[in-house]
């Protein structure tokens, strides 16, 4: 409710911009968390889908004049398709092998977009045509509209996660993350489940890619396939608490706010300070709460419950 | 030689053992019996310094073990064969045994001890190069026991050494443990196979829910109605 009204309350464009970033990265984190958090498949190559989504919709928009709204969905499906071969390859690997293979696929994809210059503007990239206010083409005059779009995405991501978490699929994912052999032994088709969740995760990540390009008005391989996005997706989830519904959101709120505040306090001083402080804070959080902040909330909640009669505590 | 006085330990907030007092004299074989979760393994872990004490004293030859860092304890000649075949899975059988003699007091006679271990467990000799993690359950158990022997211990603590061993192998193992005991090594044995254990040890303690509830000579315990019904299934 507050979230819905927020743009009306906050007149400051800068603050709204931070909220948009928070929602966007929360959404990316939520998409990542489905696979990385629940099934513990630590992917650091999710930007591959982000970039594919971004490029699909931009190519459709610029070369064929198709609305990014349609492009966004198309991008999602392209990412879903792309996740199949990548998944086929990477899911045979476990632990750090998997992680590094995902990094390599995302990097390779970037290099390919750089190499084939005639296909999608190569390294030079392109800007998004300025259409003024054109909601059908995902261009808005006010920040508030962007805010609502990305809020919608986040809600979508959370609803999907919530549904999955509560269903058999959620149990299967956690089981795979805990011990794949044991999961197989009780009839869990681990490769298939991983493939499915990877497709969903890729689809959602691609949606974020389209939004991102429309929001920053620019696309090039370095941006669309930036390793930082892969890192950020995982980082917000880990700081917030992987495998929890709200973890990525909590993590993003914390990290993005910190970084925005640091940027505005220290951004104009000599190079390096704000990121130095940021990384120190990051280290402190990880050392203090290796399992993420949701663990802290849960502990507090548990302590609260412990003070109540025991029968209240049985799960539904 | 080894003395525990009023030792208590917890896991998180859950008490695992409380006020445990036991003694093992030099050259003596002592048993530690009790149901699942009674706290037998925890007692051994406390001696080895793997769990922190909340109260009590553990002394070995007059040295306060709790004040030593855990890795110094084996140097005193205390070997602990942990519960559940915890071998180093990605090292070969031979390397596992070598590591067993890591402390200086054992290193000098490493080759000789290893001969002995291979003699007791010929299967290990056949599989020197096999990765320990790919050995069968029982083979791993043999390796764990063998690795404990590599320390040339003065006190040998065994946590369920017969777990997963075939009956023939159990016989051999108990025979050898008895022999080692006869040669002067003190033994602290945790074993679910209570009748077997009682035939090997001189004395035993019975733990229930983390407390010592009975103690005595092994034949006394073997004849006790309580022990018979609770642990011998008679």
């Amino acid at each position, binding site marked *: 409710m507050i979230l819905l009204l927020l743009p009306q309350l906050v007149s400051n464009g800068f603050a709204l911009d931070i909220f948009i970033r928070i929602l966007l990265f929360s959404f990316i984190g939520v998409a990542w968390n489905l696979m990385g958090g629940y099934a513990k498949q630590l992917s650091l190559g999710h930007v591959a889908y982000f970039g594919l989504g971004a490029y699909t919709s931009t190519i459709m928009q610029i070369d064929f004049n198709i609305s990014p709204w349609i492009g966004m969905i198309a991008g999602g499906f392209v990412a879903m398709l792309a996740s199949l071969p990548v998944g086929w390859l990477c899911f045979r690997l476990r632990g750090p092998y998997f992680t590094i293979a995902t990094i390599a696929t995302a990097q390779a994809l970037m290099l390919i977009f750089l190499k084939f210059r005639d296909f999608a503007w190569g390294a030079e990239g392109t800007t998004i045509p300025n259409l003024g206010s054109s909601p059908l083409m995902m261009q808005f005059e006010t920040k508030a509209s962007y805010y609502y779009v990305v809020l919608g995405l986040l809600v979508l991501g959370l609803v999907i996660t919530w549904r999955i978490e509560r269903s058999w699929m959620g149990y299967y994912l956690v089981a795979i993350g805990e*011990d794949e052999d044991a999961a197989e032994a009780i009839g869990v088709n681990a490769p298939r489940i991983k493939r499915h969740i990877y497709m969903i995760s890729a689809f959602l990540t691609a949606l974020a890619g389209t939004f991102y390009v429309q929001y920053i008005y620019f696309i090039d391989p370095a941006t669309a396939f930036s390793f930082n996005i892969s890192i950020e997706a995982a980082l917000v989830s880990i700081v917030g608490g992987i495998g929890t519904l709200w973890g990525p959101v909590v993590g993003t709120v914390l990290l993005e706010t910190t970084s925005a505040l640091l940027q505005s306090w220290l951004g104009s001083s000599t190079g390096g300070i704000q990121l130095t402080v940021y990384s120190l804070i990051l280290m402190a959080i990880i050392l203090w709460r290796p399992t993420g902040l949701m663990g802290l909330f849960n502990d507090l909640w548990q302590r609260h419950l412990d003070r109540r009669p025991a029968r209240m505590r049985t799960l539904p | 030689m080894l003395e525990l006085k009023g030792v208590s330990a917890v896991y998180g907030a859950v008490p695992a053992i409380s006020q445990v007092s036991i003694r093992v004299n030099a050259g003596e074989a002592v048993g530690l019996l009790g149901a699942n979760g009674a706290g037998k393994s925890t007692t051994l872990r406390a001696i080895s310094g793997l769990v922190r004490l909340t109260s009590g004293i553990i002394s070995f030859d007059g040295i306060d073990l709790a004040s030593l860092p855990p890795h110094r304890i084996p140097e005193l000649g205390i070997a602990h064969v942990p519960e559940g075949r915890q071998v180093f899975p990605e090292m070969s059988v031979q390397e596992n045994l070598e590591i067993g003699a890591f402390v200086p007091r054992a290193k000098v006679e490493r080759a000789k001890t290893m001969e002995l271990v291979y003699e007791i467990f010929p299967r290990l000799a056949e599989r020197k190069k096999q990765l320990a993690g790919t050995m069968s359950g029982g083979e791993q158990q043999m390796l764990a026991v063998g690795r404990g022997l590599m320390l040339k211990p003065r006190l040998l603590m065994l946590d369920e050494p017969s777990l997963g061993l075939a009956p023939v192998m159990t016989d051999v193992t108990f025979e050898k443990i008895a022999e080692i005991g006869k040669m002067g090594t003190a033994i602290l044995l945790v074993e679910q196979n209570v009748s077997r254990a009682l035939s090997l040890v001189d004395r035993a303690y019975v733990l229930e829910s983390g407390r010592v509830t009975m103690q005595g000579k092994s034949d006394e315990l073997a004849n006790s109605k309580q022990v018979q019904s609770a642990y011998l299934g008679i």
Partner: protein
Amino acid sequence: MTDALVVTGLNKRFGGLRAVQDVSFTVKQNETVALIGPNGAGKTTSFHLITGFHRADSGSVLAFGQEVVGLKPHDVCALGLARTFQVAKPFGAMTVLANVMTGAFLRDRHVIAAREKAREAIDFVGLAAREQTPAKDLTTIDQRRLEMARALATQPRILLLDEVMAGLNPAEIDQAVALVGKLSQRGLTIVIVEHVMRAIMAVARHIVVLDHGQKIAEGAPKEIVENPEVIRAYLGSGYAGAGGGAHA
């Protein structure tokens, strides 16, 4: 009536080691068969081969007439073969209930139904008091119970148990034996690997003895304990001397 499990000419090599050689045996429906043999005889490997965790070099395994060699473990499980692992593999971060529900989802994807089934299995193995405990906090014994419950929740027709009674004291073994008996009464076919002869003698109708990957004997329990070959390779003279009464 087709036999529950027909193993024929099963082989598996690890490098130069022939872990399982030409093993064949048959388990009739609703029968409890014990697989015994000295350490490293190939019992666990046989389980791995039957349930698809290792691929057999050659040989065939028919479960209710259907070939399972070549199938993935989850397919084998879906056919109704559930197993436990010699070293328990609980889903540590999940509660006992969630662990078992995960098994139950194989037959029923509805959360509420799965929870019902899971509770029943948990009760059956006697873990009801620990329903909400995270699996990693259980004792090894309880973890094995959990593993049984999880396997039962998949509603198998054949249950393969690998040393689920190791580390139990005689009194506890008697309880466990009763449990297996109850499973059998419910119509399950059971293959059990165990070194505790007290338990084997109590539950098994039929015993298959492996040594060095080969089947060296097969028959009714009474015959097996008197078989000199089995005594030499497995039971040891101590057992024969004690006339089978002692705990071993």
